[in-house]
């Protein structure tokens, strides 16, 4: 417990977990901002679908010239704006992912640096307040994997939207929502709970 290698790894881990706590907040807020955007995207898609279904010349609106093209242009423009905003949000999600990735790989590198002085006994040693280094490293990687998966799935949903397939755009909000499973987000909370004593205890030092 007292060797310099162990304490340096512990410090790095503690820092990473604090960071993870922040990241979780940023991620959540970014996601909450995303959902109204997606809703409006779905609405726009529904509108343009309705537009292509209706025969404007059969309605009283036929007196307006080029109405269909103009409407379509407006809708597409609105979609573009929404997608631009979503892209901004996506980049903030990406920054969260990148932060966690760099932390996870940084701690692993630090461990590998000290690997010779840290035998498996030291790595797997644990106490009531401090989980073992192996477990904590694992958790950090789990968190990193979780964010990577989430980010990729969301990116794939947005990137695969096409103008010529409106029903795909229309169903995007549902698919986006289905990616948010409570259990997946809970695993991050779980991890943070498991290391809460570790983070506080080290603070006093």
């Amino acid at each position, binding site marked *: 417990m007292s060797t310099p290698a162990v304490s340096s790894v512990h410090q790095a881990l503690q820092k990473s977990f604090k960071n993870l706590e922040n990241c979780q907040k940023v991620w959540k807020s970014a996601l909450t901002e995303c959902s109204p955007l997606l809703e409006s995207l779905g609405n726009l898609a529904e509108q343009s679908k309705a537009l292509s279904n209706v025969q404007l010349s059969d309605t009283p609106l036929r007196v307006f010239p080029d109405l269909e093209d103009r409407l379509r242009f407006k809708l597409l423009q609105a979609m573009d704006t929404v997608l631009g905003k979503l892209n901004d949000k996506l980049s903030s999600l990406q920054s969260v992912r990148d932060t966690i990735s760099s932390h996870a*790989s940084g701690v*692993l590198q630090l*461990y*590998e640096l000290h*690997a010779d002085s840290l*035998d*498996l*006994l030291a*790595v*797997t040693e644990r106490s009531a307040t401090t989980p*073992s280094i*192996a*477990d904590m*490293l*694992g958790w950090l*990687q*789990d968190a990193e*994997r979780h964010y*990577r*998966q989430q980010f*990729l*799935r969301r*990116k*794939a949903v947005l*990137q*695969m939207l*096409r103008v010529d*397939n409106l029903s795909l755009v229309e169903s995007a909000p549902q698919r986006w929502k289905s990616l948010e499973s409570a259990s997946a987000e809970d*695993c991050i909370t779980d991890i943070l709970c498991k290391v809460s004593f570790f983070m506080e205890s080290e603070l006093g030092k």
Partner: protein
Amino acid sequence: MKTLKLLSVDPSDRGSQRCRLGPELMSALGLKLGSPLLVSVPGGSCLCIAWSRSDMAEGFLQMDLKCCSPSLIPHPPTHLHMDCDRLTPVSCPKLKTIKITVVVQSASFKKHTSSSLVHELVKDMLKGVYIHEKHVINLEDFDTEIKYVVIEGIHPDSASSGLITAKTGVEITRIQTVRHYMSQLREEHTVSLGGLDEVSASLREMLQLPLLYPGTLNSLGVSCPRGVLLVGPPGVGKTLLVRRVVGDVGASLMVVRGPEVVGSRPGESEEQLRAVFERARSAAEEGPCVLFLDELDSLCPRRTGSSSPENRLVAQLLTLMDGMDRSDRFLIIGATNRPDSLDPALRRPGRFDREVVIGAPTMQQRRSILSVLCAKMPVCPSVDMMELAQRTSGYVGADLSALCREAAMNAIRENSKGSGAQTLCMNHFQDALKLVRPSCLRSSLGRTELSPVSWEQIGGLDDVKLKLRQSIEWPMRFPEAFVRLGLSRPRGVLLFGPPGCAKTTLVRAAATSSHSSFLSVSGADLYSPYVGDSEKALAQLFRQARACAPCVLFLDEIDSLIGSRSTGQTSSGVHTRLLSVLLNEMDGVGLKTVERRGTERILQAEGVGECHTQEQMDCQEVCNKDVMVVAATNRPDCLDSALLRPGRLDHIIYVPPPDQQARLAILKVCTRSMPVDADVCLEDLVTNTELYSGADLENLCKEAALLALQTENMEARVIKYTYFLQSLRKMRPSLTAQQIHTYQTPLTS
């Protein structure tokens, strides 16, 4: 050496590529957290990173199959005990570039997604993954359309494994769909198939030429065949053959079962059929593809009436098959066991160009099927496959596999009683033979359960027995001798003689001694109130008998069954029509094409250079491919003369009433199971029973025994001579001298 128990992976570890080990084992192998580790399991290997178990327990192994051999994807290893030396630490340098094939879920994703997006996604997914050459990376945990990545090559190629970093270049060589990839994987574990080499070779050639060399055919200006129709009785392995050949050729297979396509609403079935063809077309864009329509007769019955819904379905299939142009590189295979009920429009070149007939297997084919089936079973070396093949005439592939299963079950049952080693012996197969009957005889008219009778159970009649053996047993036993002397097997045997002289019993004994199938028909089986039904039934009977040749077909009381044309007043009666069917079947022009069977052609092509037993077996096959008709009558004068000429019923055997010696033999056989008193003199009885038939003598013994029970109550222990004499006094012989005389005059007069 400690063994490790392989457990299934923890859900939280899924996608992490971790391999959870006990810490002691890790330090014994010199592993740190996160060191790459190659685990070899039966059928492949898996690259993982080592991690300690959170409960520190030793002796267990949990690994995530993120990067493993392709063969492990369809069948992941489970419940395995393995040694520690299966784990080898490997070094994984950072890789500069890799070449990969991407496997995606749907064809539409492949079509519509830009390659740069796929590249971006795949690169993100692969970051930080340890890979091994020729392995497959499972990306299902990302839950996107991209399912797997197959590693085609890595650079630097000095190492066989490495780590992908953000700087590793990723080169996508091609994109495949999961269906296509899985069908490629599956072909590596194809089922083995016995006895269909000839058909499968011709089918394979037909598939391979247009699918693999379309350019050559185009330059020759030949349009390649588009459809093949497989015809054969159920259970011969049509479906299996297609699966096998398709796997060998490396094409992807789409199976359509008739009832699956048919929907309840009008137009629904046609729509589904079009969708099937569309799917086949899109699958064919990725590589050769075969569309297999199983049970085609249910999908496309003969068109009748004007507005039945099947007509539209048939028409749709016809137009779809015509609509296939040369650029569609897929082939249609249909399979049916009722080719006659198909719509004739389907069976023309341009639709189903070729028809391949698979008949019931011959003896050689049965032997190879049996050896394939038994290859995985612990069969005792004393089991003679040849003998089994000989005894299973009329069995198709499905029957043989049922036979092997039944034999294995017998062995298990015996083993559970706690005796002997776990091998299959001949007696297991013999027991199974009693249970599993050939399926081509299952619905047959003449299928009879016959209790075995040995020749010894028939007293006297040695000449007749010899003649019967000559015509039934010898061609089976000594085929080479028959071939050497240019003898052909007799087509038919007629037994005639006074009633009660053991004609039927003789036939039963002959059927028992030769191991051929035995069918027996009586008038009740054949007659029906509908015109033409009886003839059809008789023709069907012959067809079934030929399918399971060598076969003995027994027509008892043939005079009542068939009748004669010369004496009959009604020339158009059922009898005459039946007679004409029988004459045709016995010596007709030829067989129907559907009944074609395997080896004939081979035999004529390669006669020399085979081992002796092989030759003998072949001889036997050739000599015994016909049906032997055995008829019995006690009114030979009523038979039509056309039936009696050589080539039909060649051997006409008179079964005489028993003479003195024969009667003695019969009495001995009859009294064998009876407690006869010591003073009974059988010779004396023989002299008193002139003109008694065999049946009479048996009745005499029965009467005597009953008399004994009657007079001495139920306590009788022995049958005394007086009882025999008393019952003899009551009885009259059933034959008369005049009757015997008419039989002995030559038939032709």
